[in-house]
């Protein structure tokens, strides 16, 4: 089957209605075939089933990241910022940078920071319980990662709201040049300046994650020019993602009181509850790859230099892979979801992300009997992320 025989759907994943509720669109795409074309984007094919998404993510030689992991093909258009040395890179460069980041963000590191991350979570949750009526985003999902992660990177306290603006911009830039990108790019210059200034060694506390990147440069593992760019990766990928991971988990638990009851009864399910939220309401909805060679997806022949949209959130609800995919069930073994990617580009900070999710949900599970929805939530639309703007909740203490 050649590319023109692939089913074509008149769907724009970036339409507001699809960003607000992507699931009907995902189902249409999955049921149309293992790979489809989308009319508004002729230079791209899309995969919505788990098997093909997983296969694409695991074949880095055919489906490269160096031409960008958004809709823009860097072989044809200038990237919106200097290319990331990890996200938008392929081996051998990627192998070197990945090794440095894997080491800094390893489970060994998690063991060292666990107590601090737990203590901050417990304190923040206690303050929320005192308030009872909270905004799950402004009072918990946002301030928690914004405190613990930049602290671990070694960033100063001031100006951290720039991290939110930068994350929003980076993840919007992976979609089309639409109104969402235009709006978040309004402050691109000042935010980028702040980010790059804070990636300099002088502005990073000694021996924290950021400084450890520079230590890798000192030892010759990477170059000194590469160091600030790798620190940038912490700042673009490490905050907005976990904020929404925690926000989406709170959303799931508030809307599924029977699941929250299980968590309250067994707080040791917290890690699984977070994992299942990553599957059920995937923070990173999409990533792209670019074909490096003529290739095949399922039985379709795809030419070289075509963008391939991997619909992660759709794969995570593919009935071919999951029993009752549309049920949020914290007792499910959600391992194998692609909410954190897969293969060599799988989220390098995932051990830290899981730690954050686990300790926040554990702190809640121990102290809160019920989480009630106390008002309508609002969404912050983004071309890549599934994000909440507000999440009014009432916490009933145990």
């Amino acid at each position, binding site marked *: 089957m050649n590319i023109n025989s692939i089913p074509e759907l008149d769907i724009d994943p970036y339409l507001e209605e699809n960003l607000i509720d992507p699931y009907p669109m995902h189902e249409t795409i999955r049921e149309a075939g293992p790979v489809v074309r989308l009319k508004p984007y002729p230079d791209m094919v899309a995969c919505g089933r788990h098997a093909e998404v997983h296969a694409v993510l*695991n074949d880095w030689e055919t489906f490269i990241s160096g031409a960008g992991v958004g809709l823009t093909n860097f072989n044809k258009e200038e990237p919106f910022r200097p290319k990331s040395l990890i996200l938008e890179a392929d081996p051998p460069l990627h*192998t070197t940078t*990945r*090794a440095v980041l*894997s*080491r800094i963000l*390893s*489970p*060994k590191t998690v063991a060292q920071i666990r107590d601090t991350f737990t203590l901050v979570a417990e304190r923040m949750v206690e303050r929320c319980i005192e308030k009872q009526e909270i905004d799950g985003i402004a009072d918990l999902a946002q301030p928690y990662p914004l405190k613990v992660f930049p602290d671990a990177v070694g960033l100063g306290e001031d100006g951290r709201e720039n991290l939110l603006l930068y994350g929003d911009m980076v993840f919007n830039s992976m979609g089309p040049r639409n109104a969402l990108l235009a709006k978040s790019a309004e402050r691109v210059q000042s935010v980028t300046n702040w980010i790059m200034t804070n990636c300099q060694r002088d502005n990073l506390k000694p021996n924290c994650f950021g400084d450890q990147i520079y230590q890798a440069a000192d030892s010759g593992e990477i170059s000194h020019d590469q160091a600030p760019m790798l620190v940038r990766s912490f700042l673009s990928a490490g905050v907005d993602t976990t904020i929404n991971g925690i926000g989406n988990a709170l959303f799931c638990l508030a809307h599924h009181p029977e699941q929250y009851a299980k968590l309250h009864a067994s707080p040791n399910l917290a890690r699984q509850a977070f*994992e299942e939220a990553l599957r059920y309401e995937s923070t990173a909805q999409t990533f792209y790859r670019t074909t490096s060679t003529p290739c095949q997806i399922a039985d379709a022949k795809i030419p070289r230099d075509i963008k391939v949209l991997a619909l992660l959130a759709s794969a995570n609800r593919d009935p071919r892979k999951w029993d009752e995919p549309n049920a949020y069930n914290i007792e499910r073994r959600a*391992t*194998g*979801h*692609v909410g*954190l*990617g*897969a*293969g*060599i*580009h*799988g*989220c*390098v900070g*995932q*051990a830290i992300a*899981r730690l954050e999710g686990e300790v926040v949900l554990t702190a809640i599970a121990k102290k809160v009997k019920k989480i009630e929805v106390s008002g309508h939530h609002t969404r912050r639309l983004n071309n890549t992320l599934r994000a909440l703007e507000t999440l009014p909740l009432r916490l009933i203490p145990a």
Partner: protein
Amino acid sequence: MGVAIFKLPDGKDVSVEVPNGESLMQAASNAGIGGIIAECGGSAMCATCHVYVDGQWLDSLSAPLANELEMLDCTLSPRLANSRLSCQIRMTLELSGINVTVPDAQ
């Protein structure tokens, strides 16, 4: 298609068919082998698919990359000379029949 034998902590041996090119972790997960947790899904980021590779097969494996070596430093059960992450072992013709021991804890 090849075969991998997982020796479980309770003493049982489980034989699993593994398509060529697929990882031992993936095949173990599909077969529901509980001792292979594989939290990260195969990105060499979590050290929870740790196995001990039986001696005769060790030389047939490609050497671990830097990121796997980092993770092997983080295993819950002791790291031994034959410790590997099963997500990084892909089935080949010559690996068919490989024996791996699943540790007590991941």
